[in-house]
């Protein structure tokens, strides 16, 4: 009897541990984790990767990623990563950070690591809200969005305006590649994967600092069901944070 021809089409990447995550249904973190893990596998980087986890919803990322990881104090991931990369310039160093971590408490560490041109890849999850602490205003919260600390919705006169840190980083001379994607549909997720791949290639080619911002749904704290949250991300959040390449001086061309 002949064996039926079986081809494995889908499996867990080796760069992910076989553990359940604590992420809510419809949250973008799981998708982003998977994209990072798939790419580390595809590029053969898992065993030379050192990741830096943030404080925020992804604080437990070291329980899900199957490579060396360290926890950073809130906002300090890129300073910690700088220390790591300077000791191990031949290793692959990435930070995985949310908007509160990267664009509020860690703004200084973010801008200065980028401006030094540290050869690090940063995955920046922008869900416009503080998730782990329960839905307070983020620096990226859009005008009108109701957070637990913005009664009636974010009012720019009272609460300040949403910050576009990716645009700010693009101004720094030593940043090489910055792109904003959304985790909202197969098309956009595939695009996000290509952007993350390019960011990884920028580091592998020793070109400098790169960052991929991922607009990511937070159904729990936006008080929406997952499908509404994904639609809101694509139709509303992108109005404040337009998708696309913000800066690319890598010379790497299109990445497939």
């Amino acid at each position, binding site marked *: 009897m002949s064996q039926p021809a079986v081809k494995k089409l889908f499996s867990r990447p080796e760069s992910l541990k076989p553990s359940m995550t604590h992420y809510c249904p419809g949250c973008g973190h799981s998708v982003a984790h998977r994209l990072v893990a798939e790419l580390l596998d595809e590029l053969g980087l*898992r*065993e*030379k*990767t*050192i990741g*830096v*986890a943030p404080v925020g919803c992804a*604080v*437990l990322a*070291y*329980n899900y*990623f*199957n*490579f*060396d*990881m*360290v*926890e*950073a*104090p809130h906002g*300090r991931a890129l*300073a*910690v*990563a*700088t*220390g*790591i*990369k*300077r*000791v*191990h310039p031949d*290793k*692959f160093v990435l930070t995985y950070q949310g908007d509160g971590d990267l664009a509020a408490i860690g703004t*200084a*560490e973010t*801008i*200065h690591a980028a401006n*030094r041109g540290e050869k690090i890849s940063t995955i920046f999850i922008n869900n416009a809200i503080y998730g782990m602490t329960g839905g307070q205003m983020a620096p990226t919260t859009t005008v009108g969005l109701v957070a637990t600390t913005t009664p009636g919705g974010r009012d720019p006169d009272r609460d300040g305006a949403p910050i576009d840190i990716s645009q700010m980083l693009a101004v720094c001379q030593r940043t090489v590649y910055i792109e904003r994607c959304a985790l909202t549909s197969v098309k956009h997720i595939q695009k996000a994967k290509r952007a993350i791949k390019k960011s990884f290639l920028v580091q592998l080619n020793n070109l400098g600092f790169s960052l991929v911002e991922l607009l990511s749904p937070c159904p729990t704290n936006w008080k929406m069901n997952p499908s509404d949250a994904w639609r809101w991300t694509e139709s509303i959040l992108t109005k404040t944070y337009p998708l696309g390449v913000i800066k690319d001086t890598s010379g790497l061309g299109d990445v497939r």
Partner: protein
Amino acid sequence: MLMRGAHVVGEAAVRAGCRYYFGYPITPQNELPEYLSSRLLEVGGTFIQAESEIASINMVIGASVAGGRVMTSSSSPGISLKQEGISYLCGQELPAVIVNMMRGGPGLGNIAPSQADYFQATRGGGHGDYRLLVLAPASNQELAELTFDAFELADKYRNPVMILGDGLMGQMMEPVIFRDPIDPRELPPKDYILEGCKGREPRAVFSMLLDPPTLYQHNMKLLRKYEEISAKEIRYETYQVDDAELILVAYGTASRIAKGAVNRLRREGFKVGLFRPVTLWPYPKEVLRSLAGGGVKIGVFELSVGQMVEDVIMSVGSRSEIYLQGVPGGPVPTPAHVADFAVSVLKGDGRLGRKVEI
């Protein structure tokens, strides 16, 4: 070799295998990063002038978890900013050397010599149950020795070590003999560092332990480490204490002045000695306790309104009368001033210093 104190720390660090320095300018310790900015280049190391003290201490975390011998330095307000990172280093059990060349406070204070950060250094200025080893050198030669030892102790116990000096010490020129340099590549391998998981299971280094019994166990493990340090790493100097009727207690720069006072008073026939703690944590409590009693008086001299005196009280208790001369804010008394204090205590005239009521 005749060298400035701040340069002595830098040179000793490089000889101890330190190849990574991260810091932010603040007076009075800038000569140390300036020295290392070029010295580390010569040995293939890394010097980064960071955007803040906060960034510096977090770069230290990164370099330490990656396995490097690493140091940062600052002065009082800057050390306050590093406290979050110091707490993480302790929680994550990562070695590092932190130099504090103290200046006057609170707030911006001034840039004069001070010992006002004793509580912050020995009690932990950051959050959580933790301890730092705190070394208090009193000469350039000792700066060289203790800087070297600080890296060894940090690696041995996987805990940050603080060198507590002051602005005067950083500027002081004195001859110094250095130990032979060691090659950091020849140090024993560390089994907890992150360098990619090739050939082994991935490692995770973190301090967050959400499960209360797990964090309890972690805290108890740290406690056992601190108890071991307390048992093994006490350092101190005694000077002319055997027949002393008054023992002055002082550390660092203050102890230099106090020793001058002891020499002066001995020439005049007063039976005065000096006890100098070199480790401020762990504090040499038992030794000091053994010197107290039998009518011996204790005179604490420090460049603050009185912080180390609390450790003296815990050591001595009611065995001896304890007097304090605390001088905050930057004026540096001369040996003659301290000798006056000592004579006043010996005579019991209440003219100088104050008696500490327990």
